[in-house]
């Protein structure tokens, strides 16, 4: 394969600068020793990270986001794993329609989903509760959990399951001893991707969050609406650091491009 010429490399460098600039600048400003927004050059300080301790609403929002992400990703997988097995293993009428329905939260703008959930949960009398947030997040992260599980289930050699059956395993034993271990990498990646999606969602959540159930992105957004100061950059820098960690984990154990392009059916391993 031929190499890139100098012009291509200049373009590439500028492109990468464009992509990382806003992320770098946030993290950089977060280390300012000043009381106002500035880009530190000689002095770096952790004062704004320490200051976070004095803003319990950020700490609380962070806890809400963590719990919400972890819980909704788990619940989403409880629904997604059997659904993925159904879509990958069985032929039945309406199968294509079903998979389109399950992936629809990717197509529907999150504003619309947020509005629909707000209307629905308010009518159901659970508006503003953590439970409502969990249900909404389960639906929104479901496609991500489903896609990776589906890719793993489709890519799996089915004769391995037949072998287990022929050796006398019943359906449940086969699932527990053979299928589950085989699709586990897909499930784990699906969980991580679902967690990130839940952890980062603003557009849908902002319709459902109330002061007690504000997630971190919602808290940050509302804060920025009022004023932008170094405090919110230190929050952002922390979020970026957490996401990067999960991201690198995902890349290591599954390959990031594969995680993000996984479509049920063609992402065999």
């Amino acid at each position, binding site marked *: 394969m031929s190499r*890139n010429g100098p012009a291509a490399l200049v373009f590439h460098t500028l492109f990468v600068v464009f992509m990382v600039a806003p992320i770098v600048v946030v993290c950089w400003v977060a280390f300012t020793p000043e009381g106002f927004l500035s880009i530190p050059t000689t002095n770096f300080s952790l004062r704004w990270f320490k200051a976070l301790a004095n803003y319990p609403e950020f700490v609380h929002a962070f806890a809400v986001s963590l719990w919400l992400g972890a819980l909704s990703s788990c619940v989403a997988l409880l629904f997604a794993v059997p659904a993925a097995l159904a879509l990958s293993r*069985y*032929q039945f009428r309406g199968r294509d329609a079903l998979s389109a329905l399950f992936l629809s939260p990717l197509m529907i703008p999150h504003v619309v989903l947020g509005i629909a*959930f707000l*209307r629905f949960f308010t009518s159901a009398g659970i508006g503003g509760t953590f439970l409502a947030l969990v249900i909404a997040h*389960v639906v929104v992260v479901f496609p991500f959990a489903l896609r990776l599980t589906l890719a793993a289930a489709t890519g799996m050699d089915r004769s391995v399951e037949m072998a287990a059956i022929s050796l006398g395993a019943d359906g449940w034993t086969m699932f527990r001893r053979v299928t589950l271990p085989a699709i586990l990498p897909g499930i784990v990646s699906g969980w991580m991707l679902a967690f990130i999606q839940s952890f*980062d969602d603003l*557009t849908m959540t902002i319709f459902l969050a109330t002061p007690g159930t504000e997630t971190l992105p919602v808290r940050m957004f509302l804060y920025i609406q009022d004023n932008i100061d170094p405090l919110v950059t230190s929050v952002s820098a922390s979020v970026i650091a957490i996401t990067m960690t999960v991201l690198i984990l995902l890349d290591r154990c599954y390959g990031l491009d594969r995680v993000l392009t996984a479509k049920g059916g063609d992402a065999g391993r």
Partner: protein
Amino acid sequence: MSTTVSANPSDARTGLTLALPALMLFTGVVVIPLAMTVLLSFHDWGQYKGIEPVFILKNWIEIVSDPYYAEMFWRTFRVAVLATLITAVFGVPEAYILNRMQGPWKGLFLLIIIGPLLISVVARTLGWALLFGGNNGLVNKLLMTSGLIASPLRFMFTETGMVIALAHAMMPFMVLAVWTALQRLDPQVENAALSLGAGSFTVIRRIVLPQIMPGVLSGAIIVFSLSASAFATPAIIGGRRLKVAATLAYDEFLNTLNWPLGAAVAVLLLIALVLIVVGSNALIERRYQEMFR
């Protein structure tokens, strides 16, 4: 001979049973709420009386007739189209360059370029707000010292700023779509063209581009639909006055509290997007039919 999936009725039943919990969840928590929202857009609302469950066209007539909404929708789509164009113009060559890179560099830069996709959109947009910053923002300083402009440009609270920040947020989708298309390309075909005497520019224009066009277009559809329904970026960069569909719906719901009107805006956005996305998908499929067969 490969193992055949049995198509007997008991198997179909097992399949449906496994999918049933998810189906019930989606019916209960997606289909019904969406139907309720469509219904809500036909309800009446008043400052003091609140929501009245009647069936009227008031909200729809208001959206269609008031030029304020027309301008807002027009802005939404203008911004989305511009952001899509920028991602295509810069994302396609970058994906091509990325694909020609060697071993570990490829993986590293792919991570750097598509990684931001998963980083909080609020944090990323905050970054642009810092870069744009008023008159002495970093971008303006850089442009002025390099002599490209004489006086500072306005980025915050302008459509220009919105388009740049949106293009940045959506760029990973374009690069990913083109990257996937490039992966399917047989590298020998490029070499074949070179051996027949084509220059590298001709190879890109005549050989590579036509083959990855479906990837570019499907990337464009994703970028367009996500840009047109984006909320965080327009809200932070555009501020309170420069409204797009998503921020308007948000205001109607959480500030004005006119839910029926907000629902109508949201439903209109959904319908417009579904029509555009489904329509262009069908066009692309028909145009590139032979490539997928």
